[in-house]
């Protein structure tokens, strides 16, 4: 059996009377592409928010890399090794492309206030080092020429890639991508799938939410389907595609 990196057990999130995520359990294995799919409003992003610490789950546990991280704050989950992107891109619009990525290194930097105040040799060295590594990441996503532009001036597809680069700068073991192919042209979707493969080759496990079935079926090893907050199916692409409950959830009951 493969090593699991993320174990979600009995996860439930209630907002008042609404149950957004209802008793969902699954395992994500190291080195795979794991996809979470489901109709709009199924609770996918809420589940992401519970894993990354933006919401505290009402019930259930999240075990990451052998540690219980249930209810930790977002910056703590980043430190633990989980990075994420957002469904509606959230870059720092008025910061440069390079600074967006450099900020990603924040939680890994060891300069203290005094180092920053007095520009100690340690601080200068660390800044130079993360600048170098941020440039590597920009080359990785093909944005090195835009380093000094403000993030808001990038084209839409470039903004998605920059957000991925920023997330990768936190040096995650697990990368959560929330609808990374939304609004992409067919060519951009192909590029994205290639990028995901390259991310995997850097020993980062990918956990994504996606609507585009060709992307999902093309890159994921394992798929979990949510509907109305409940898990209705789990398995490989072919298995999930043939599941009558999945077809029903997406297309409705046949008359």
């Amino acid at each position, binding site marked *: 059996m493969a090593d699991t990196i993320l174990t979600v057990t009995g996860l439930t999130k209630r907002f008042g009377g609404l149950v957004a995520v209802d008793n969902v359990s699954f395992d994500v294995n190291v080195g795979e592409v794991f996809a979470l799919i489901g109709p709009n409003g199924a609770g996918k992003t809420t589940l992401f928010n519970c894993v*990354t610490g*933006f919401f505290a789950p009402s019930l259930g546990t999240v075990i990451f890399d052998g540690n219980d991280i249930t209810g930790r*704050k*977002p*910056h703590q989950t*980043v*430190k633990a090794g989980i*990075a*994420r992107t*957002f*469904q*509606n*891109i*959230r*870059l*720092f*619009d*008025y*910061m440069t492309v390079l*600074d967006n990525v*450099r*900020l*990603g*290194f*924040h*939680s*890994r*930097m060891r*300069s203290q*206030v005094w*180092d*920053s*105040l*007095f*520009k100690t040799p340690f*601080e200068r060295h660390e*800044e130079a080092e993360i600048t170098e590594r941020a440039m590597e990441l920009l080359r990785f996503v093909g944005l090195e020429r835009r380093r000094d532009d*403000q993030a*808001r*001036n*990038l*084209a*839409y597809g*470039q*903004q998605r890639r920059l957000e991925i680069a*920023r*997330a990768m*700068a*936190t040096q995650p073991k697990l990368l959560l991508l929330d609808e990374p192919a939304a*609004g992409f042209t067919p060519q951009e979707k192909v590029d994205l799938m290639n990028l995901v493969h390259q991310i995997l080759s850097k020993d980062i496990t990918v956990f994504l939410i996606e609507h585009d079935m060709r992307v999902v079926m093309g890159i994921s090893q394992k798929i979990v389907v949510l509907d109305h907050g409940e898990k209705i199916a789990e398995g490989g692409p072919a298995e999930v595609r043939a599941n009558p409950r999945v077809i029903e959830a997406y297309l409705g009951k046949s008359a």
Partner: protein
Amino acid sequence: MNGFVGSIRARLRSPNATAYAVMLIAALVYPEIVQFVTGGNGDALVGLAADAGIFVLLAIGLNVVVGFAGLLDLGYAAFFAIGAYTYAIIASDELATAPIHHAVHIPFWIAMFVGLFVAAGFGALLGAPTLRLRGDYLAIVTLGFGEIVPRVFRNLNVWTGGVFGVSAIDPPTVPRWLDGPWAGDPFGIQQDLQLTSANLTGFYIVIVVVIIGVVILVNNLERSRLGRAWMAVREDETAAAATGVNTVNIKLLAFAIGASTSGFAGAFYGAKLSVVNSDQFSFIISITVLSMVVLGGMGNIPGAMIGGLVLYFILYKFLPDAPNQVASLVQSIGLGWLNNTNPNGWPGLGEEVNRLKYIIFGLIIVGIMLYRPQGLLPSRARRQELTSEEVPGIGAPRELQS
């Protein structure tokens, strides 16, 4: 030679570098010019500039809180008060009458740092429970703090002298002082010179040196991981947290650093004035400093400094002098009858201007903000935020993206 000139030209193209250069040169030549023009009687004007320096320091500190981290602080004067009272209490006879019955006289140069740390400590103390609040809520809490602190000082009679405050505060002592023709003396070195109201040039030099030091340090902060994290928190707190920034800690740090600068300024203020009482730290001080930051250019250090200088000049020189200036102006152009009172209720032009001076002040502020909403010398990001409609990005607008 060409390369050297070229590099200077390139630097001058950056508005910030130009502003720093102009301010530095102005600071260096100001006392000489003032003494020359007034024939050696310019001490009051030099002292006025030293007071302006205190406000510049306050503006630099508040700029870290409001401009960098985006936290609206309406009670900034509280930390100014804490710094001033800290210095006053540990560098005067005040504690002789307090329950410990023993006066403490800590030298200025050490006490200034005590003021800094005490203010930073209170900044952290206030920030810890409140910085979870966002925007307007935080502003209201800081407003409350700004009101509470001076009242506590006023009512803590045994320690702070109550309504009368603390007076006869120790002046700073400079171990060596260079005398020269600029002060009307022959060249010579004085030892252990006490800076008093008779030596305002000394205070001026001290505040200029302190400002230079603080500007260098705050500039370093801005161009470090902290500066980036502050900017990120200001733009999008959620995204900053998702990128690994401990948003509560980073805001707390901005608060404490802003408070410490204010505490530093407060200690200097106490030493220069030699008297401290709670009326000096009212809400109007917090608002004035906030206006300086906004007017100068939020998030930009030289902008905040220029805002501080401009507003200080208007408030403490231009407006107080305006009535007399106007009166003598109309006299000299032959309209002196305007200065005479008139039984219909006309109080004379000078007095009329005096009555209207806060309306004039308001009009000046409104005028500057209409003409330059981004501030006199804005930061790059802020300039673009306010003009973004005119410079459309290539990317689709936010509302079309999700």
